[in-house]
């Protein structure tokens, strides 16, 4: 095909502009499409080069940074568009070089080329094509907008195909943190770089708020316990200095009785507090788990299609479990340790400052070691967790796919795969073990050496009678009670790290906003009529790869619309726009004249019934599955809907009738039977709009007939969208919409489309050739 051939009309338009710059009206129209994204501030050197390049009265339209050089290296280039020319500038020795300067009048049309990881914009002239600019995906959205502006200026462009200025082409790009400009993680609105650990901890502790009283009692008992733990040291000093030294028998009984009562009281308080804190931890985690699951249910389909099931499960189970350990045990320990350390510190210095200073000598080493260890172990644990997640992901992948594994006799390979991942986990766990099995004994050594210092120095002082025996014994006792918490803080550090990481992952899910938001003040449509209108609806899952573009048609209430087209044409996506599994990017989907985005999600989905190709039955009885959408349905209603779905007869033949368990994934029933149960489910819901997504494509002809009958009952008086590959299923459709490459290729009745000799009639011929049995 020769692209130079231009249509007569466009030549005239092209000529018009040859006479000079664009008209004021044209300029105004273009100018409306521009904003800061396309009119960027330029470095001085580029600015001055542009000043030299352009003529007086020439109007600047677009100035944009691009990031790939013509040679295909990363590098800065600037694209300039004025009302007369198109230029590319490159920085050069503090100034700028004009690499390309194309008068707009020479350009017949523009061509935007979309590649893997990059793209290019070309200007097609009469005798050649010029590569105007190359860019990575980071700049692609802006260049795409430039392209749509430029198309308005090019005479050979198919002007009828204007789909508007495409301001929001592609789903929202990665949102960036307002503070640091980094891309935010998918599904999160919290920037992990700007998030403060303290804030995270505060948020975690915030979950204790409803149980304030318990937390306060727990805290108070911690203080009492700390004190009770320290008193015995004083008593021991008295034992040596006031009883054993002066041979004072009466004092001995005081010591024994007071120690006994302290031990008893301490034990009772410990029991009570331990149970209470366990309860508190469990309770808080129960709240979090519930909140997490509730939130998961709220999230949009996109979230689930991108995260692996195993990952989501791991957040609800593992991460939450880690938090329970922290809230029940970790927090208590931290509080007790933090209280004990300063108190012992004061006690030691009050008794003998010099000995105290020596006793505390190893403390800085322990503290520094702890800090260093915490950092290292955190990194290693991250890897351990990633391996854990990988392991559960492997499980979540292979168990549901077990039929495929078995039918291809690949059990050994799956086992090997699992073994590999398990092995990786083992290696990483060993790495972690290597670290802590080295660290803790080393710390133990330091403290033991510290105790030797106390014995040596303190002992010599006792021998020289510079201090009492009781004081020395008290010191050795308190010393161990001091190192314990300090050493514990090392453990604590990584326990907090564990907990915070888990908390972060849980909060990340909790902070994920549903992509399909419910509009504030959404409209309740108690009983919709079922008139559906698509107005220029466009959608894409990935930027730059439109799945649906400019879909427009109306389905009147009660009409049955057949959706036909090659796989990947966007049929399933189209119906998912209807019940808002996804939202349009541009255009609108209207039900009874209301944009679906304005309707209450619940009332919208309650009135749309869906029958899918692969029906999903929950673990439960047949009856429970039928009334899934209407839990309070009467037995009469359930039987009636099963009869309407042609399901009743086989259900009563099941061992326990309607109370038969479906088995996991409904494997006790055949595909056709499960399909009929799912149709009964849809009938019982009595929806106004019905979506049949390949509802009969996976069953045999006889079952298909039964299902067809059932569907015909279901379809009556409802707006129906039926997707089918077997075109025979659609012969009752009021109209058929043929989709191709995400666009509406044809619309009409079966007969009209057959006559028109388009895609539909081709498909029909193809199918009737394939199966002569089916009469048209």
């Amino acid at each position, binding site marked *: 095909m020769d692209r130079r051939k231009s249509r007569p009309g466009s030549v005239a338009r092209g000529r018009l502009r040859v006479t000079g710059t664009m008209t004021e009206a044209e300029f105004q129209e273009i100018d409306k499409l521009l904003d800061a994204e396309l009119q960027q501030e330029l470095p001085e050197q580029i600015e001055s080069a542009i000043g030299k390049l352009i003529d007086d009265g020439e109007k600047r339209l677009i100035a944009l940074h691009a990031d790939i050089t013509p040679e*295909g290296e990363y590098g800065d280039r600037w694209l300039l568009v004025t009302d007369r020319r198109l230029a590319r500038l490159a920085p050069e020795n503090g100034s700028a070089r004009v690499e390309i300067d194309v008068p707009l009048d020479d350009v017949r049309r523009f061509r935007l*080329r979309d590649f893997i990881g990059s793209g290019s914009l070309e200007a097609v002239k009469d005798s050649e094509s010029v590569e105007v600019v190359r860019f990575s*995906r*980071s700049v692609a959205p802006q260049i795409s907008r430039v392209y749509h502006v430029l198309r308005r200026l090019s005479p050979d462009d198919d002007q009828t195909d204007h789909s508007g200025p495409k301001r929001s082409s592609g789903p929202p790009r990665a949102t960036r943190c307002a503070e640091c400009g980094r891309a935010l*993680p998918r599904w999160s609105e919290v920037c992990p770089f700007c998030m403060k650990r303290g804030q995270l901890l505060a948020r975690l502790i915030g979950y204790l708020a409803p149980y304030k009283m318990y937390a306060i009692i727990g805290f108070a008992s911690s203080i009492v316990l700390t004190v009770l733990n320290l008193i015995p040291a004083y008593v021991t000093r008295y034992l040596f200095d006031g009883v054993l030294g002066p041979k004072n028998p009466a004092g001995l009984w005081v010591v024994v009785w007071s120690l006994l009562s302290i031990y008893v009281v301490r034990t009772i308080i410990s029991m009570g507090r331990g149970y209470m804190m366990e309860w508190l931890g469990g309770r808080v985690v129960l709240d979090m788990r519930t909140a997490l699951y509730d939130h998961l249910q709220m999230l949009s389909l996109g979230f689930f299609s991108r995260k692996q099931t195993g990952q989501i499960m791991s957040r609800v189970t593992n991460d939450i479990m880690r938090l329970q350990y922290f809230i029940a045990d970790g927090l208590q320990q931290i509080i007790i340790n933090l209280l004990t350390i300063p108190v012992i510190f004061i006690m030691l210095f009050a008794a003998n400052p010099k000995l105290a200073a020596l006793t505390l000598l190893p403390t800085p080493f322990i503290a520094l070691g702890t800090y260093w260890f915490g950092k290292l172990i955190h990194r290693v644990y991250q890897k351990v967790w990633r391996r854990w997640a990988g392991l559960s992901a492997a499980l979540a992948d292979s168990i549901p796919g077990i039929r495929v594994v078995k039918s291809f006799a690949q059990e050994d390979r799956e086992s090997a795969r699992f073994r590999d991942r398990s092995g990786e986990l083992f290696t990483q766990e060993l790495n972690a073990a290597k670290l802590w099995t080295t660290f803790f004994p080393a710390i133990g050594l330091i403290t033991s050496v510290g105790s030797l210092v106390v014995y040596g120095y303190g002992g010599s002082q006792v021998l020289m009678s510079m201090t009492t025996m009781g004081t020395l014994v008290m010191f050795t006792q308190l010393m161990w009670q001091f190192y314990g918490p300090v050493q514990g803080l090392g453990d604590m550090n990584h326990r907090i790290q564990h907990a915070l990481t888990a908390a972060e992952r849980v909060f990340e899910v909790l902070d994920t906003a549903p992509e399909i938001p419910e509009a504030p003040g959404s409209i309740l449509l108690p009983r919709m009529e079922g008139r559906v209108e698509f107005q220029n609806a466009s959608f894409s899952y990935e930027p730059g790869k439109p799945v649906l573009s400019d879909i427009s048609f109306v389905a009147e209430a009660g009409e049955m619309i057949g959706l036909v087209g090659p796989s990947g044409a966007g049929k399933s996506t189209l119906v998912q726009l209807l019940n808002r599994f996804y939202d349009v990017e541009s255009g609108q989907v209207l039900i009874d004249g209301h944009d679906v985005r304005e309707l209450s999600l619940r009332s919208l989905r309650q009135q749309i019934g869906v029958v899918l190709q692969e029906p999903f039955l929950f673990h439960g009885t047949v009856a429970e599955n039928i009334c899934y959408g209407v839990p309070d349905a009467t037995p009469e209603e359930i039987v009636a809907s099963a009869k309407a779905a042609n399901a009743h007869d086989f259900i009563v033949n099941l061992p326990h009738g309607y109370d038969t368990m479906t088995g996991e994934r409904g494997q006790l029933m055949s595909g056709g039977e499960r399909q009929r149960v799912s149709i009964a489910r849809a009938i019982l819901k009595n929806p106004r709009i019905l979506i049949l997504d390949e509802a009969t494509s996976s069953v045999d002809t006889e079952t298909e007939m039964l299902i067809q009958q059932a569907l015909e009952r279901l379809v009556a008086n409802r707006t129906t969208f039926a997707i089918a590959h077997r075109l025979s299923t659609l012969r009752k459709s009021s109209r058929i919409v043929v989709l191709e490459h995400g666009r509406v290729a044809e619309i009409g009745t079966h007969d009209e489309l057959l006559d028109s000799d388009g895609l539909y009639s081709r498909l029909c011929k193809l199918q009737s050739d394939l199966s002569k049995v089916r009469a048209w």
Partner: protein
Amino acid sequence: MINPQDEKEEAAAPAGPAADATEEASARATSWDAELQRLEILDAKRVKIWRDEFRRLHVLVDGKTEHIDLKPAPVFPLSEAADFLSFLDEKGKEVALLRNPSCLDPESRELLAEELNRAYFVPKITYIYEIEDAHGAARWEVETNRGYRVFDIRDREDVRVLGKGRLLLQDADGNRYEIEDMGSLDERSRRLLDAEV
């Protein structure tokens, strides 16, 4: 119509003792061979490639059949299982499948390399200056074979280990980067990388 999948299974099955092989099985094996034969992979020597003044890629096969305005697409870009290259027309339909493009004549080869540099822009990371990681989200500052680059990774899932030390990354904007062999990077880069995988 033969189902290639099944046949492949058949063919891949360990060949038992010759006595076991029924005639039917051998007949099917032959038909699978026929299927393989039918797979037309052009030898690079039969192909000439050039670009016209409208920047359209032309592919001339055997000096006779000419295809215009094609886009090259590597078939196994990551695993490099085979050096196949597909040529797609404007609608994404394959018009030719080429084997060993490195055996093309020098001009064609040079042009193809330039076109591939466009069509499959996946810079290879050669040195890592810094990775600032915050629980999966990370900012990478790297040197690639196409120059210096800073990019953001949104999610740990966007760092894919392809086996044998090969890594594929996708940044927040959808750009891709590759690390051919983690083991062959310098120690500093390796250490930074180690925390990410």
